[in-house]
């Protein structure tokens, strides 16, 4: 066990830090969930990242990456968040679809999609959930009917994040008449294809984080199916593993939030009881515990291990930690907590918005109730109901 960075890792950190200092926009970009302009500003940032070959650092060089190991990925993420670089508009693509495609995609698919994904040329939305299929994803009803070398897609998708402005989506579709986990395929489709209608869904803060997608006889080449026909469930579960576990949630995100919370407390502590320091310290400890756990998992994976149902513990931990941290911030703000910008004044952190986002943590990426079932059944061996 060696909890010190190597000189090479330190040098890598310095390289990332220098690039971020020279390139990260000085102020926050406009939201990518409100206007096309905001969305395109983020696409420009993805392109700039890609020019520096920082688009997806763990990917093979052939697809625009740097083939870095997970420890260097963590260092990259630490510097990314430390520099307050913009949230990745393409996270559905680079963190979920990308790794899945690396595992299940054909050479042709990898060459066609991955470099454009890393470069921000294609921004991806996910199209998994349906009105009748959330946690019970096997209840998907949307169909893919084979027609020679094409599929005809029909049905309705919902909670498709980024789908309001994104270029492409990936979704689960079933062979007509098939049931449950059988007969499903993971299919990639352009969101501007004839027959696709998008209806933005406003989140409670007014942002169009999600869209409903209505698919009416959308024609897609069979070559745009990821994985084997009828094997969509298997492919999709691999993606869910990436989503719940290591890949989606960098520890750095919470460590930065904890540092911001410390600053907020520091600036307000004269009007607060000393006991508040304990809650602030708890948030910092939790963020550091999460980072240590991810480093330990990364070390294990780098040595050839694999991630199993313990990724469900990650998901529960970060989602609950995130809510507690932001709740503490709102408690510190006190009677100002309910104020939305611009009435809150110019603060570096919009605690209210981040709190509202944190509330979704236990819901998305597999609800925490489902994660607890996974821990109980697959990790601890308790019987199924």
């Amino acid at each position: 066990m060696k909890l010190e960075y190597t000189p090479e890792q330190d040098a890598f950190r310095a390289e990332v830090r220098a690039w971020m200092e020279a390139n990260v926009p000085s102020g926050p970009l406009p939201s990518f969930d409100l206007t096309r302009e905001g969305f395109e500003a983020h696409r420009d940032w993805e392109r700039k990242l890609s020019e520096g070959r920082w688009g997806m650092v763990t990917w093979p060089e052939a697809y625009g990456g740097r083939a870095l190991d997970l420890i260097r990925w963590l260092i990259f993420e630490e510097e990314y968040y430390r520099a307050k670089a913009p949230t990745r508009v393409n996270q559905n693509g680079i963190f979920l679809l990308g790794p899945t495609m690396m595992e299940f995609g054909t050479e042709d698919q990898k060459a066609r999609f991955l470099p454009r994904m890393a470069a921000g040329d294609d921004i991806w939305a996910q199209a998994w959930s349906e009105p009748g299929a959330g946690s019970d994803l096997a209840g998907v009803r949307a169909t893919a009917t084979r027609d020679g070398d094409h599929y005809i897609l029909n049905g309705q998708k919902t909670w498709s994040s980024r789908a309001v402005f994104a270029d492409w989506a990936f979704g689960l579709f079933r062979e007509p008449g098939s049931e449950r986990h059988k007969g499903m395929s993971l299919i990639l489709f352009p969101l501007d294809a004839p027959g696709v209608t998008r209806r933005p869904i406003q989140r409670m803060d007014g942002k169009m984080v999600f869209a409903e997608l209505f698919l009416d006889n959308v024609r897609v080449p069979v070559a745009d199916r990821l994985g084997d026909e009828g094997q969509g469930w298997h492919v999709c579960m691999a993606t869910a593993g990436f989503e719940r576990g290591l890949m989606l949630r960098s520890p750095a995100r919470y460590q930065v939030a904890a540092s911001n919370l410390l600053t907020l407390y520091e600036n307000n502590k004269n009007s607060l009881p000393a006991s508040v320091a304990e809650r602030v310290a708890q948030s910092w400890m939790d963020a550091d515990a999460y980072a240590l756990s991810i480093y330990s998992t990364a070390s294990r994976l780098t040595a050839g291990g694999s991630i199993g149902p313990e990724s469900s513990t990650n998901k529960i931990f970060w989602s609950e930690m995130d809510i507690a941290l932001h709740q503490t911030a709102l408690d510190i703000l006190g009677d100002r907590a309910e104020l939305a910008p611009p009435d809150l004044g110019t603060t570096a952190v919009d605690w209210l918005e981040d709190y509202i986002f944190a509330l979704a943590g236990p819901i998305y990426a597999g609800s925490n109730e489902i994660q607890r079932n996974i821990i109980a059944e697959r990790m601890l061996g308790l019987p199924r109901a």
Partner: protein
Amino acid sequence: MQFAFDEDQLAMTDAARVMLVETCTPADLRHLLERNEAWDEARWNAIRDMGLVAMLAPEDAGGLELAPVDLVGIAEAAGYVGLPEPLVEQAGIVVPLLASLADDRGWIERVIRGEVVAVGHPANPFVADADTAGAFILPHGAELHLVEREQVSLTLRHSVDTFRRLFTVDWSPSPETMVGSDWGQTADRGALFTAAQLIGLGQRAIDLAVAYAKDRTQFGKPIGSYQAVKHLIASAQVKIEFARPVVHAAAAELPLDTFASRARVAHAKIAAGDAADLATRTAVQVYGAMGMTREADVHFFLKRTLALRYAWGTAFDHRATVIERLNTRPTGPDMTFASRVPA
């Protein structure tokens, strides 16, 4: 950067764990309890023969001169079995303390051979293992005194955990008994290895709860098939999962002896104590009324957890250390490891 145990560490820990699990079953604990004893000579000999007590001792004293991180998994295993004998205390706390003295008066070798030295650190007014000790290290102001058994008188203080033999110690300091004036990292080692035991205790409570929930039926089904029970146990497991790496990091970073490494130990003690508390209380809940009895095994682990949460510094003490670290040292994603934080 490598946050994983190496093969030697895993092999040694596995061997120790297997021995402890085989020789210290709940049935073994019950036999001791019936005899009102807290010591099994055969088990202690097995522990000693394996060289576990000597792990952190200097080579010239016959030790292996290993680091705290080499012992942390074994301390976890000792917690897992609810070990009554003071392996963790002797190997993790007493031996390094004796090694830090200018003159240990021959006690390191005697401890490695199986004798016991009890420590009266100011953090713990009640001295554990005093009735089996051949000598004591006791505080007098800032001074440390090494006192032989016949120079003290002991008064038993009953712990909730009958395997924890606590005593108040009456003694008189003299120039002859004084051996030092610096506890060094003793308090950190005490908190660290106690935290490691708490992780083991918590995991054992969960494993007991899982086994019981598979076996016990209500309304015609095992209670472990009910989501309400599953979620209780899963929540406790999450808490353990995110305390364990903190304890392991604290062990690896302890030799740095910086403020950040001390704060990590404090964090480890808080996190492990909270996790073991939730896990043992959850186990009692899963056992239902049986969990409140001495007939179910869970009480051994609940009571040890109760005791160890308050040994080597309370959560209040350790939180104060963490808060001071936050007030005086930088935080952020590039400051995860104590080696990065300014001393």
